[in-house]
């Protein structure tokens, strides 16, 4: 680079072009000086910037909601658009125009967060107005529901709203500009209230200091083919797609005792049904392909010959059909060999990533021709004929055993995070992982009872780990100093089958995971959360998997989001869980609606697995003004109970509203009380939020201090 007088310079590439020719150099200087004298108008740049962000948001939302067209004979109803469809809140509610008043001035309010279902609760909201506004009047006209203490700043016609204590996670919000108070800069009044509606993402709920990670022992059962996969089909019993034992290679039934049985030639796909009763694997030979459907231990096989594409996975659809990729399309075949097309979308199974959920309702597809960049891949809802992206997804996603929840590694940030969401779409929980930016994470597997997961970590120095981690906070509970791919959990959650390596030799191994240390209440909360996720997705199959056979899950209502309010242990050993189901507001209905749902959870006779034994949903209604109880649980200190509210409380109202000693933490909106022993706790209607709105009705809760 050559610097000259007045700060002019020519870079080395230009100097190379002009050489020693001083006149040419002078001409280049003049051209550069001339061409760099057009600064952009800052006001124009700022306005265009706000518009660009809003339009980009609209594109992202439209893309995520873009309809995927089912086959012509699709028998199911059209999908219902979710909240996310509202991308850009330009909401003008026409009000009555008083004869004596001047004509109202149309004003549009746009915000990049409008219509988002998973805004970071620590984020701020920027609202851009299409006209110059009276800043003081607009600020006075602003209110946020649920009531939220905010700081406001202006930049031009951008109103920046910063919640003092952040926003409540997993909550629906409405930001309103009251037309009765807001004015334009020229004094004009608005024709109606302006609303920006959005929702916040759930956040991890750490359960305290995690215990130090322990060793995760891996037991090798057999040598394997490079792409082999193994599933645990019973106590100490595995089926592997390509195992080598006693000199034979093929589909093997492997016993923990070391015994093995050859079932057929090696294959590349195997799956167990969601209820664990059925097994399916692929057979190739003689130029044809067949799918073998059998009992879970591989007995009573029935073979149907059907063209299956190279690289296709298999997935059971509730014991009745097996899904696969054939002829470049997702298809399903039943035990009698009847084939139907599930999706018209073209799939190249040999190159594309295809993951089919337990139950077969969802399929993740990522084109093999797409770059290995985060965010490339869509999750298809084969029942609704809809699809959405998994934001930032890298590697392959994993599904919960019921299929209602999907988890993936979000590689959009500097360090990968674990993301979880209802498979049908909804608020996304992002969980930090104890990994470095250069680490590569892969091979995710969710434990069947929820609460834990396994994944593989490849460090830059070549070392690999298989980790068992907690869903609560991502903490590592146990680790093996070997990589482990293609994890498949046992139905009881006690072990995981993986493909690992000894040197360059692939091996099938089993990791015996430490017993879960979660309390019964935590397990109940985990089941209720999975149940709620399935309900948000309207996934009847997943609901049936999580509930006892007598529970009429078909009558349970849908929702935009759900949260666990309270888990209580009953004297008969069952658990009662209170859920809050929320229907997010929309620009047309700028008010959240909610209902409570009561779940009864009981252990099944065999193995003590919790199941939903009763579910009763209350009526749906607009959320009343004032604070609402979002969570009630044992407090961090012994003998205390923590009540978390959905709004910022007026701290001065707390003490008088409780009949027992109470302290308020504004940062978490949590009141901690110290009742003496188990008792009924009463919260009076004198409790109010920062907007001065009182508790709608007295609360009486039976509590058990921690």
């Amino acid at each position, binding site marked *: 680079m050559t610097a000259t007088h007045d700060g002019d310079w020519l*870079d080395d*590439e*230009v100097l*190379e*072009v*002009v050489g020693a020719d001083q*006149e*040419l150099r002078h*001409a*280049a200087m*003049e*051209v*550069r000086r*001339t*061409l*760099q*004298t*057009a*600064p*952009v*108008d800052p006001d*124009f*740049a700022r306005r*265009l*910037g706000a*518009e*660009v*962000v*809003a*339009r*980009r*948001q609209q*594109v*992202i939302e439209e*893309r995520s909601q873009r309809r995927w067209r089912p086959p012509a004979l699709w028998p199911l109803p059209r999908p219902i658009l979710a909240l996310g469809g509202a991308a850009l809140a330009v909401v003008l509610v026409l009000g009555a125009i008083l004869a004596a008043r001047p004509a109202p001035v149309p004003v549009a309010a746009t915000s*990049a967060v409008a219509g988002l279902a998973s805004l970071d609760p620590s984020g701020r909201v920027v609202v851009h107005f299409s006209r110059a506004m009276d800043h003081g009047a607009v600020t006075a006209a602003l209110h946020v529901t649920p009531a939220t203490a905010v700081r406001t700043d202006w930049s031009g016609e951008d109103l920046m709203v910063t919640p003092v204590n952040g926003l409540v996670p997993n909550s629906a919000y409405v930001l309103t500009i009251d037309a009765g108070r807001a004015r334009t800069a020229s004094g004009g009044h608005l024709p109606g209230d302006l609303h920006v509606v959005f929702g916040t993402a759930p956040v991890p709920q750490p359960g305290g200091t995690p215990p130090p990670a322990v060793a995760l022992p891996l037991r090798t059962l057999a040598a394997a083919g490079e792409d082999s996969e193994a599933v645990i089909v019973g106590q100490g019993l595995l089926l592997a797609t390509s195992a080598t034992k006693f000199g034979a290679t093929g589909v093997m039934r492997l016993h923990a005792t070391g015994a093995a049985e050859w079932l057929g030639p090696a294959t590349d796909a195997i799956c167990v049904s969601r209820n664990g009763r059925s097994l399916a694997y692929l057979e190739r030979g003689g130029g044809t392909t067949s799918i073998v459907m059998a009992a879970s231990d591989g007995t009573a096989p029935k073979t149907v010959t059907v063209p299956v594409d190279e690289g296709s996975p298999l997935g059971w659809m509730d014991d009745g059909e097996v899904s696969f990729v054939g002829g470049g399309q997702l298809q399903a075949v039943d035990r009698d060999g009847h084939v139907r097309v599930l999706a018209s979308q073209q799939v190249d199974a040999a190159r594309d990533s295809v993951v089919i959920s337990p139950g077969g309702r969802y399929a993740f597809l990522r084109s093999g021709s797409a*770059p290995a*960049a*985060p*965010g490339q891949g869509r999750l298809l809802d084969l029942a609704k004929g809809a699809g959405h*992206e998994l*934001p*930032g997804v890298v590697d392959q996603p994993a599904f919960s055993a019921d299929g209602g929840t999907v988890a993936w590694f979000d590689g*959009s*940030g*500097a360090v990968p995070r674990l993301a979880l969401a209802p498979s049908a779409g909804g608020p996304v929980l992002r969980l930090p992982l104890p990994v470095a930016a250069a680490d590569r994470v892969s091979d995710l597997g969710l434990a069947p009872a929820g609460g834990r997961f396994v994944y593989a970590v490849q460090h830059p120095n070549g070392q690999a780990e298989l980790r068992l981690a907690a869903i609560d906070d991502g903490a590592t509970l146990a680790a093996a100093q070997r990589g482990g791919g293609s994890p498949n959990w046992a139905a009881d959650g006690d072990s995981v089958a993986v493909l690992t390596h000894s040197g360059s030799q692939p091996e099938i191994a089993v990791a015996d995971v430490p017993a879960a240390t979660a309390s019964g209440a935590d397990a109940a909360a985990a089941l209720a959360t999975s149940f709620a996720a399935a309900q948000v997705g309207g996934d009847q199959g997943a609901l049936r998997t999580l509930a006892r056979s007598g529970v009429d899950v078909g009558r349970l209502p849908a929702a935009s989001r759900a949260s666990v309010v309270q888990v209580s242990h009953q004297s008969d050993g069952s658990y009662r869980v209170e859920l809050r189901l929320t229907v997010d507001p929309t620009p047309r209905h700028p008010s959240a609606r909610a209902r409570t749902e009561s779940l009864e959870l009981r252990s099944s006779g065999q193995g003590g697995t919790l199941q939903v034994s009763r579910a009763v949903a209350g009526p749906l209604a607009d959320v009343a003004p004032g604070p609402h109880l979002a969570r009630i649980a044992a407090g961090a200190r012994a003998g205390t109970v923590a009540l978390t509210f959905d709004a910022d409380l007026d701290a001065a109202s707390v003490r008088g509203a409780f009949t027992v000693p109470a302290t308020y933490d504004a940062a978490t909106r949590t009141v901690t009380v110290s009742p003496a022993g188990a008792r009924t706790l009463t919260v009076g209607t004198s409790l109010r939020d920062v907007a001065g709105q009182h508790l709608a009705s007295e609360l009486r809760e039976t509590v058990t201090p921690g």
Partner: protein
Amino acid sequence: MREAFPGEADLVERARTDPHAFGQLYERYVSQIFRFVHNRVRDRSIAEDLTSEVFFKALRAIDRYRPTSRPFSAWLYQIATNTVIDHVRTRRTTLDLDAVAHRPDGQPPVEEQVARRADVERVWDAVADLVETQRLAVTLKLGQDMHTADIAACMGRTEGAVKLLIYRGLNTIRQKLEEAAPSRREA
């Protein structure tokens, strides 16, 4: 992919799902794109319209952008180049000297600015008279300080070809300036 600034690749990836990441890319490039467009159309109002159009096209097309094919900046300038070409084709607006002298963003010509203004206009005219490929290469190199490799990616030519275009363009500009200078003195 060559990064124009640290973290650009990550920002581009995040922009696929995060509108604010796209907003950060916009903030990085809006001044450069505006200047590039302005240098081509020499009208602030039109330049603002076209700059808006460039970013509106980019925000719709970024999902199809593949970082392996060319740097993000080259991709964006390609959009800007096409937008300007489309504008010129449809409008055929060529500003004459009078129009330039009275363009709305210009300061009122005061005595001490006259000489410099005339110099600027001569240079602008010289650049405007170049054949399209030379004008694009010179504008990107000297107006935007882009790397030759990125200009090559933007124009779909080799680096050597781009250097040749710049060299020929500068030679032509030098000749034009030399021709204009005596006439100005005579005037």
